[in-house]
C-alpha cells in the first residue's frame, strides 16, 4: 500500500506494518494488479490481509510470480494462509456457474522469513510475526 509506506514503521525498523485490504478495493482491481499489490507489500516486509481471498487462478499466478521474484539473501517467498475451503465439497454447479466459489475466505500473506503459522484449523489461524 504505497500511500501508507512513506512514513510506515517498517522503514524505521520499529514494528511490522499490517495492511487490511477490503473486498471492495480488491473487486476493482485486475488479477495482476492484486498480485503486484500483494507482492509489493510483502517484499516491503508487510503483512497483507485480504478480506476476501484470491480466486484459484489468481492464487496460481501468485505462486508463479512469487517464484520469479525469489532471490537469494533478499526474498525467500511468501507464507500464505486461508481458512480451508470446506465449501468446495458441497458446491453446486449453479454456484460455480454464478462464480460463487472463486474467492474464498480471509487470507493472510507475509514474507516467508517473517511469518510462521503456529496453528490453523477451520476457524482459527494463529501466526507468529517477527521483525525483519
Amino acid at each position, binding site marked *: 500500500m504505497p500511500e501508507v509506506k512513506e512514513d510506515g514503521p517498517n522503514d524505521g525498523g520499529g514494528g511490522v506494518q499490517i495492511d487490511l485490504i477490503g473486498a471492495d478495493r480488491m473487486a476493482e482491481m485486475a488479477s495482476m494488479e492484486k498480485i503486484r499489490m500483494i507482492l509489493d507489500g510483502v517484499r516491503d516486509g508487510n503483512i497483507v490481509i485480504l478480506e476476501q481471498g484470491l480466486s484459484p487462478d489468481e492464487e496460481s499466478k501468485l505462486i508463479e510470480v512469487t*517464484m520469479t521474484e525469489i532471490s537469494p539473501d533478499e526474498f525467500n517467498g*511468501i507464507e500464505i494462509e486461508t481458512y480451508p475451503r470446506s465449501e468446495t465439497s458441497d458446491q453446486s454447479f449453479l454456484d460455480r456457474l454464478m462464480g460463487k466459489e472463486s474467492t474464498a475466505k480471509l487470507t493472510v500473506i507475509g514474507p516467508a522469513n517473517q511469518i510462521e503459522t503456529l496453528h490453523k484449523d477451520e476457524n482459527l489461524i494463529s501466526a507468529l510475526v517477527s521483525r525483519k
Partner: protein
Amino acid sequence: MGLFTDLKDSVSRVTDKLFSAQEPKRIGIYGPPNAGKTTLANRIARDWTGDAVGPESHIPHETRRARRKENVEIERNGKKVTIDIVDTPGVTTKVDYEEFLDHDMEKEDAVRRSREATEGVAEAMHWLREDVDGVIYVLDSTTDPFTQVNTMLIGIIESQDLPVLILANKTDLEDSSVQRIRNAFPQHETIPSSALEGDNMDEVYEKIAEYFG
C-alpha cells in the same frame, strides 16, 4: 454366425484405431516437494515402457524441470489408456537456499539449486493452467495434508475441472495414515500406494484407466 463374428471384429478394429488415433492425455503428477512424485513417475514409466523419467532423491527439489514421458500405454480390465506422464517439481510458495546447505551442499550449488527450483515451480504452475488434461496429486501419507499449498493446489485443479486422483503415497512407512488424507480431501477418491515398493500399484493403474481413459 461367422459373418456376425467378422463384423464384430471389424467394428472392434475400427474403434481400436479410432481410440489409438486419439491424442494421449497429458497427466500431470503434482504435489508438494518430497511426496514421491518422481518415484511414482518412474514406477509407472518402468512398468509400462521399461524406461525411467528422472532421478529420485530425498533432498527437496530434486526435480526442477517438468519432465514428460510420452505415450505410456496402460491397460487394465480391458480398458486401455495412452497418457503422457508429466513429472513436475514440488509446488511451494517459498524456497530458501539455506535449506540445501543442510544437505552438505556448497553455497554456490545451493543458490543454483534454489534458482532452478523456483523456475521449476513457476513452470509447473504454468503447465497446470495451460497444458495438462488430468492430475495425479501425490501426498506423503506420513505428513499432515492440511497445508496451504495442498489446499490451494486442489482448489486450482478443481477450478479447472480437471479429473484428479489423489495418491496417499509412502504407505510402506510406519507413520503412514491414509485416512488423514481422506479426511482432508473427502470430495476426491484417495488411493493408498507405495511407489517405492510398488505396493497397490494394480489399483493405481485401474484408477488411472478409469479416470483418464
